[in-house]
């Protein structure tokens, strides 16, 4: 059974995909890594980013973090504030 999750995109990830918000359908037991694998399939250019992190509900998440359909997920390319 699949569930939809929404993914926010910023900076270079938005430019590479042309999207600022994606709705992805993932397996119910999907983890961060599974979502990334799916994104890389749809948008192979994302794999070029040298260090892509993922935030879940506003916190950096590990690759094995379990996702739910209520999560606010965001791709975090290398930051460059300041």
């Amino acid at each position, binding site marked *: 059974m699949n569930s939809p999750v929404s993914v*926010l995109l*910023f*900076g*270079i990830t938005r*430019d590479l995909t042309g999207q600022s918000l994606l709705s992805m359908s993932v397996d119910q037991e999907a983890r961060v890594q599974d979502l990334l694998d799916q994104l890389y399939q749809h948008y192979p250019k994302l794999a*070029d*980013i*040298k260090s892509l992190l993922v*935030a879940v509900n*506003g*916190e950096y998440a590990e690759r094995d973090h379990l996702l739910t359909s209520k999560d606010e997920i*965001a791709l*975090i*390319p*290398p*930051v*460059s*504030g*300041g």
Partner: protein
Amino acid sequence: MIAITTEPIDVASALQNLQTEQAGAIDLFLGVVRDNTKKRPVDRLEYEAYDRMAISEMQKIADEAHRQWPILRYTIIHRTGTLRTGELAVLIGIASAHRADAFEACRYIIDTIKQTVPIWKKEIFTDGEVWVNAHP
């Protein structure tokens, strides 16, 4: 005080916000848009933030600075949107009783912001553009 704003950063009001009767030292760091990066002329910068998370990450940094140094007051303001040469992108202000604490906490905060806070800067040159740090 922690803020992300699209308005120009107001140094005078940030300073007022830092002042307290116990403060003997205030260190104020300003990050300014320069006209030149790697010898390529910059027309403007575009900053964007994942606002919600950027605020909470900056709060974590401020809390950690509070644990490490006896800070009386702090102000962290990051601007987003389009910035031109000479405009302020970020202001970090620390008030403390003694100066060493203000300098060290201020430097810790700006160094850490640059590492962990989800804010991105695109440099727009006369002949192209680039997301800083991100490019393959």
